[in-house]
């Protein structure tokens, strides 16, 4: 118990504030925007439609103490029925297409779809074949794209936060 408390005090708070170059907003301001616009928080449902797991690693990193996603009022949700944003990674495989569509259909309006990673945005490596349908936008209407292989947590954050402003 005491070792845990000592460690927590010793390590301290390592959260970093996201600073957008153009808008000059800091974490607190983003959180206020999200609180106002999205009625207290932005709920994100993640679906891997066929990725290699690299994008998942970076999305999970967003919850680490450095990026600390929840400081902006953004949270991951387990159910699409609670979600505002659908974050999709990977080229959409034919085996995952139905699950992806059902997840999207289960989300109430208003909803947004964000394609995460090069595979989801432009599918540069696989093409369409007997196993792959294509990019996320070949299956669902996409509102924003985050390119990268995998995109860094800073980049993911930048795009999601900008989504909330517009």
């Amino acid at each position, binding site marked *: 118990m005491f070792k845990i408390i000592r460690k927590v005090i010793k390590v301290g708070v390592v959260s970093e504030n996201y600073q957008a170059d153009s808008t000059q907003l800091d974490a607190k301001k983003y959180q206020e925007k999200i609180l106002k616009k999205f009625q207290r928080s932005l709920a994100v449902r993640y679906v891997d439609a066929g990725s*290699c797991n690299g994008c998942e690693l970076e999305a999970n990193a967003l919850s680490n103490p450095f990026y600390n996603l929840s400081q902006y009022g953004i949270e991951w949700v387990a159910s699409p029925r609670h979600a505002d944003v659908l974050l999709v990674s990977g080229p959409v495989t034919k*085996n995952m297409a139905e699950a992806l569509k059902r997840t999207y259909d289960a989300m109430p309006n208003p909803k947004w779809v964000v394609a995460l990673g090069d595979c989801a945005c432009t599918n540069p490596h*696989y*093409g369409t074949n007997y196993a792959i349908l294509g990019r996320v936008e070949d299956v669902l209407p996409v509102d924003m794209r985050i390119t990268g292989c995998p995109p860094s947590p800073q980049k993911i954050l930048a795009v999601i936060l900008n989504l909330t402003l517009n």
Partner: protein
Amino acid sequence: MQLSQQVEVKNLRDYCVALHAQGAILLAMWGSDERSEQHAFILHLIFLLPHAQEQTAIEQYTQIKLATDAPAFSDISDLFPVANRLQRALYDLLGFVAVGAKDTRPWLRHQAWSSDQFPLRTDFSVCPPTQDLYPFVTVQGEGVHEVSVGPVHAGIIEPGYFRFSVMGEEMLRLEERLGYTHKGIAKRLQNTAIHDAAKIVARVSGDATVAYSLAFAEAIEQALDFKVSEATQWLRAILLERERIANHLGDLGALGNDGGLAFGLAQFSRLKELWLRTHQALFGHRYLMDLIVTGGIEIELDVAKQQILLAEIKLLRQEVLSLENIYQQHSGLQGRFVTTGIVKHKRAETLGLLGLAARASGIAVDCRQLLKQLPYQEVDFKLVKQTAGDVAARVKVRFQEIYASLDLLEKFLTNPLSLAATKNEVQRCSVKPASCSWSYAIIESWRGPIAVAVKLNAAGQVSHAHVHDCSWQNWLALSYAIVDNIVADFPLINKSFNLSYSGADV
């Protein structure tokens, strides 16, 4: 790697029985359509024989020619349980029949193509989807109900489907259905330039990208009869060990979280983030993707980087030791870990488990040591093993492997060879293949051994390729580990294996 042996299909069963008697582990099994080059379909098998006396007999690679009109071979899944799914995948992709197999349900073919079409055959053309339903095994009995999870999972993880038969809270049976991230990689790699193929193999399983890139590079280098310098081998091993540590840090945090200690996730994810930031700063990519290339390596080490890395190792060792101490003394966490998700030693042997999960159940096999790989042979390699086979054992193996890898890294970094590797070596490597036969390499990724096999054509392209992840074997263990546990412990048990979906679906 070993040169291939040829076994006639009629002798396959006896051959496998003999190998099984020697304690062989089936590592990989795949097929290729070589009707134009060799007038046959080929079935390939790689076995590991950890108890072999001769070094040359530890790996065995076998090719079996199958008839072009009706490719069939005798079922070996009773000897090697992993063959059940591998055979089913072989039928889905190539139409090879495993004669005598009891389970002939499709594995990778969900509904994307029909049962009489075979995508990896050269004469395949895309066809409309089917509506075939998958026949799950049902458990009968009063009070038994089914719970299904997936393919979309609650957390941010890969997709897969699990159907539990549950009595109250207790899991009686688990049936897995995978294949959701099947991207047709083997087909995609056919007749592809080496450079492009390397990128695809690096993305088979993103968290093991260094291991896959390394196995691919080594397999291609064998086909080109090119030997990289010793310095490059040392530097490649440094990247492989750094990847191992990154994954273990992430897993230890996630396991603490799944056991109810969110503090563990916060601390370990912090340590992992620092580790990844070093990768970005020194090597240009957080996950070291695309750094190991055919013929060499895309990074160099200088004394300044060496010092940064050595200092980081010292710090990390202290941090992980203090966190291990906290984990061990936290009775709530240990209550979740100890005796949960047990895979007994005998079960692990029968299933042919490999890698980290196998070592936690007492199977002392690590390909870095078994296959006498450089540079591990040059230093004192410590094989990590536990015997309890529960979540606590898989946690302990991860802690011990972190310390072992930190020690290895210190030895590698302080050897002047690792500072001598240069990027320019790649230019020495020509793409004229020495032979057009199959070559392969096995690398102990952080989960366990993965294999990449390639065949080049005369133009120096990859004509066929196959990748195998040890997750195929270890997914079998999960169905046994959950028995006598409650549903609420499933995420913890699953995470304690942390197997690849994308690596197995391929």
